[in-house]
Every structure is written in C-alpha cells, then in structure tokens.
C-alpha cells in the first residue's frame, strides 16, 4: 500500500539517498580541500551525511538541499579543524602530497603556502577554502558558514593579510639562505 509507514520510510530514504549520491563527490572534494587529509575528509563527509539524515525532516524544501547540506558539511569540517589544530600543537603541518603531473613551480608554491594556510584559524581556513576552491561569492560563503557577509569579508581580509605576512617571512628566509 502506497501510504503505509514502511512505504513512507522507504520513500524518505530513497529521496535522501538520491540527493546524497548526487552530492557525495562534490561534498567529499570540498571536505578534502578544507581539511587536506583524506581520512579526515572521509570521516567529515560521512558524519555530515549522518547529521543530514537525522535532520532530514527539518529540510522543508528539498530543492535547497545543496545549501542546507553545505552548511552541515562546513560546520562538521570546522569542528574537525578545531580538533586537528589542538592535536597538532607543536607539530609541523605536512604539505599535501605531490603528484607527478605537477610542474615544479606549482609544487614549490604549494610548499610555501601550505604551512601558512595551516596556521590560519579554522574560521579563516573555511572562508579561504570556499572562496578559492569553490569560487563562491561573499554572500554565498555567508549563507554556507552561517554568518553575515561582513563577517566573511573580515575573516577573508584577515586571512589574506596573515597569509601575506607568513609568505613574506618564508620568502625572506629563503632569500637569506
């Protein structure tokens, strides 16, 4: 019978799974771009989908799934970044793995940038990732992070200032060598 509880449950599950399947790869890539570690990105993506399923009934308009889920994913990544940063106090954050296809110059630039990116606060790192991985506008980032556009601008401005300062230090050290 179409309206039976089990049929309703199945319909809900199917709707969720169809959207999850559609958005899984992009969500995982975003988590990987933010967190940089494969295992952390896998866990964050899984946890975000678990949260999304738990909250499934609160999503009133499924056309808004992407925005709604991005917020959950970004919040999950933020919490993981906070935990990661505490675990690594005193450790050097590794640069992302190099790939054979990378021209030498790009690898060199990444090597210089990643320690600087790793020093950003979780909030700064998230807005930087959303801006430069997904090319989101300030307003689009604000919606996903759950803060006002002015706050996004401020975090981005501070992040770029800090990155520039870190890069300046690194490059002046290199020129000293």
């Amino acid at each position, binding site marked *: 019978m179409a309206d039976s509880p089990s049929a309703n449950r199945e319909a809900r599950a199917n709707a969720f*799974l169809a959207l999850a*399947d559609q958005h899984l790869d992009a969500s995982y890539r975003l988590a990987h771009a933010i967190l940089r570690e494969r295992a952390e990105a896998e866990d964050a993506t899984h946890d975000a*989908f678990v949260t999304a399923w738990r909250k499934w009934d609160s999503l009133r308009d499924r056309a808004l799934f992407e925005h709604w889920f991005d917020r959950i994913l970004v919040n999950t990544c933020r919490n993981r970044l906070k935990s990661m940063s505490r675990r690594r106090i005193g450790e050097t954050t590794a640069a992302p793995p190099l790939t054979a296809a990378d021209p030498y110059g790009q690898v060199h630039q990444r090597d210089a*940038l990643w320690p600087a990116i790793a020093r950003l606060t979780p909030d700064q790192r998230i807005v930087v990732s959303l801006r430069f991985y997904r090319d989101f506008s300030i307003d689009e980032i604000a919606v996903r992070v*759950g803060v006002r556009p002015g*706050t996004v601008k401020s975090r981005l401005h501070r992040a770029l200032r800090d990155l520039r300062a870190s890069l300046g230090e690194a490059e002046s050290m290199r020129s000293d060598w």
Partner: protein
Amino acid sequence: MTQRDLEQRLRSAIRGGVDPGAPPWLQARIQAIPDTIPTAHRGASHPWLSLASSRAVSVAVVSAIVVALSVGLGLLAWRNLGTAPPTPPSPATWTGPVRADAGGMPVLSQSRDAETGWADGRDAAIPWADITAVRGSFQGQSHWGIELAGWPPRAEGLDPDQTVIEYGVVLDTNRDRVPDYEFGINNDAREAGEFRVWVTDLAAEHTNERVGPPNGFPVDFSYPDEQDPDGQIQPSMQLWFNPGTRPIGPPEEVLPSDQWQFYVWATVTEGGEVVAWDYAPDFGWLTATSP
C-alpha cells in the same frame, strides 16, 4: 606580490592534491545510513516510539522502555498523548546550575541509540533558553546536544555586561546523584562575540576556564551562531570533551563516561538578573545506560 598573485597561488594550492571523488567504501557507508540511523521525528509522538517503529529497533531499546515504565514514570504514554510528562516542572525560581534537590531526582534512561534524546516541554520564557531536547552520546568523545526552541541572538551582537546567555551540563560521574562536575559556555567574555567556557570540579571547588579563543579547551563547543542561520535545522548547543580533557579519577569517583548521569540547563541573564531558564530533564538525571 600583488593581491591577484596571492589569490592565484591560493587557488593553485587549495585545488592541488584534492581527490577527484569519494572512495567506493564511503559511498557504500552513506547508502547504508537510512538503514542504520533513525531520524529525528518531531511532533506529539515520543522519539522512543518512533525509534521502536524504525528498522533500527533493538532489544536494548525495548529494555530501556520497560525499565523506564517499571520505575513508574509513565513517560512514554503521556508524551504520546501530547501531555506533559509526570515529572515535576522546573523550579519556580532559579537557584543555579547545581540543583539543591539533585539527590532526590529520579534517574531517567536515555537509550544510547535514540538520536533525538530526551524531549523536554516548552516551558521557558525565552525560546533560546527553552530546551526542547537533550542527548548525551558517549561512543568515542563524550558529547551533549542541547536543542532549543529558538535561535539565540548572535553573540557578537550582545553586550556581555547586559545580556548573558548560558548553556551547560551537570555531571554525576559515579552515579550517587550528587553533582560532581559542572561545565558550560556563556558569552560573558572580554569582547562581544567571544565565549567563556569552563569546567568546575565541584568536590575540589576548582574551575578550569578559558575566555575567548583559542577554543576547544577545557570543553569544545559548537554554538548556534556557527550553525544554520535561517532555520533549516533545529538550533542547538553542542558541547563535548576532546581526547584528554574529560574528567578522570578513580572508579569510585569517575565511572566510564557511558555510565555518567547528567542534566543540562540554559539561562538568559539581563542586567544581572536571570530572566529565563530551563533544565532538561525538568526534574531528573539522564543516563545513557539503564539506571
């Protein structure tokens, strides 16, 4: 280096090394979520009843319900009828997070599989002090989720000298119904938008606190500010202990965390006076295991 150069280098750095897609095993795990995780059904029915009708029903849940009924709470039936549970309401006056009547409160069972946790009635004067559900989970990190009837104003827009919003948990770590630890979060910090987080060992009368960033110690949190701004999800306060920060002690003082008993509170203070508050449960300790 120009701004444009910096932005190009950032794009290259952030896009480099990102996997093209999720691994197949992750896809399989996500496909299994509806079969293994119950969702948060809201409304008149009690979450435990929703769970009992889900595919994830287990003997443990049924046992928890039987135990709850056997101690005379009658909670499930009352909730299913849409009426208040037969526990006394929150006290008429606010006497602080640590309740003087804690020793006489019943221990209420929360199934560790129940995703929605303990439902609490709408009984506070201000929505963001009104706790609608609480759930403790103790698999891995000890974590508490406190769901609220409304979104609190953003902390960065509050003057902490005038308005303080506070959420917290009281723990009984050895199941003797005597509060052992209190921890919580409020916006009573140096700057608007920052938070004060603390853990108090009530026996030792020692408080470990942090005001402002870096966050995460002694208690980590996710404040509603960091969640959904437009109401697509239920506002909630999340608190948890990171590895190495949970209370520890000899077994007679600190049992494994899944045996702890707890209750949570929320308050709004205006001009030094508590104007709205809520406990959840209204009168009782919650436990993730059988009382």
